[in-house]
């Protein structure tokens, strides 16, 4: 097991918002300048801390969307209706604002561009964020590792990074993109709306040698997807998961 996650003490750093980009009606990407950022690996996350004028503070974890080596750090935050921190990040924060963060955190749910083996990425909703960091890292480094992303969303306009993903997949036969729509599909979509299933996950194939699987999303989605893969004969030891409940560790 790689032991390169977090070597020194993780101190709080001040980050400055340089831009915000609307992704969907309920999600925004926040672009941050973090002087002295130590670098990260695709799939890691940061802790964000907000402090109110009376000193009250709240912390949450957010996956990093940007690839290692980029000049800015990007988070994509889905607004939770009942959230304390996500509505602020998704609605209030503006360029020029500052916040505190520390990281990178997590040395397990990571993909290294030196790994040549095939990769299956399975995303539910905003669980696509750390997987997007892996896809961007693959593109940035010129990796030829075959990537397959299966991205489950409720309806077309809730998909994050839709344009960027379409562009990357169109230009690269090594990146296969499959959407699953659980509530409503785009016009003319050949399949009815429905949940992820074995046929979609495996494309009727046994796991190729050396496959690495990353599954990220809400708990129910991750449990279902991981169970289906194990039932289909995929080695549980090759499946890494990151889960967030309705109020769990992630947005």
């Amino acid at each position: 097991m790689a032991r390169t996650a977090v070597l020194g003490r993780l101190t709080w750093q001040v980050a400055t918002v340089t831009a915000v980009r609307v992704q969907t009606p309920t999600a925004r990407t926040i672009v941050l300048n973090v002087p002295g950022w130590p670098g990260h690996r695709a799939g890691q996350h940061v802790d964000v801390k907000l402090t109110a004028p009376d000193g009250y503070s709240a912390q949450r974890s957010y996956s990093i969307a940007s690839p290692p080596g980029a000049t800015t750090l990007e988070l994509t935050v889905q607004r939770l209706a009942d959230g304390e921190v996500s509505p602020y990040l998704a609605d209030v924060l503006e360029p020029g604002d500052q916040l505190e963060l520390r990281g990178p955190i997590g040395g397990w749910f990571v993909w290294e561009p030196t790994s040549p083996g095939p990769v299956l990425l399975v995303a539910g909703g905003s669980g696509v964020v750390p997987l997007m960091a892996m896809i961007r890292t693959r593109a940035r480094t010129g990796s030829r590792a075959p990537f397959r992303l299966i991205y489950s969303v409720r309806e077309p306009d809730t998909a994050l990074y839709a344009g960027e993903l379409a562009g990357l997949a169109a230009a690269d036969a090594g990146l296969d993109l499959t959407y699953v729509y659980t509530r409503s599909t785009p016009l003319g979509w050949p399949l009815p709306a429905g949940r992820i299933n074995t046929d979609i996950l495996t494309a009727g194939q046994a796991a190729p040698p050396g496959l690495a699987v990353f599954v990220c999303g809400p708990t129910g989605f991750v449990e279902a997807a991981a169970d289906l893969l194990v039932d289909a004969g995929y080695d549980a030891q090759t499946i890494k998961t990151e889960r967030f409940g309705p109020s769990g560790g992630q947005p």
Partner: protein
Amino acid sequence: MAIVSRGFGGRRRGGDEKLPPGQYLVTDFPVLSAGPTPRVNLDTWELRIAAETGQSRSWDWAAFRQLPHEDITVDLHCVTKWSKLGTAWRGVSLDTLLDGVATDAEFALARSYGGYTTNLPLADLLGGQAWIAFSYDRADLDPEHGGPARLLVPHLYLWKSAKWVRSIDLLTKDQPGFWESLGYHNYGDPWREQRYWGD
């Protein structure tokens, strides 16, 4: 000096005196695991305690369930920031399981079905601080929450409460477990906010 976040008021949800620093209150029960939920068969389930002397003791499911158990109500604190207060469990105290074990060990490593491990000082398993829990909220423990049985050490962050526990090794030398090898704190006291290496 903290940066004040313009326009951030926060939302205190109550129970603050029971919340360690940096934690927030939830009422649901989030799940965090590093891989698929392992399938654990009660017919072949075993719990083993192995001392550094080479001696070990083990229980199958029927024998384990014959042991005296306790009902405990405790607060849970996850390193991912959520805390859940007043959770009701039933389990066998580690004091019962370790009673009469001859050991000079100061450390323990819990091993789980599925390959997960976590380490803690042996002293933290003793003195009414730790259980092998098999029931949550008066029902069998769900697999996604660690069923059929998990370690429960509520005074440490919840990753120390290994789900699907199968053995506890008593060691004379500390051996970092899964998350402890990947950047998370070796001890994990929520009241000292020991989340990561160096905290």
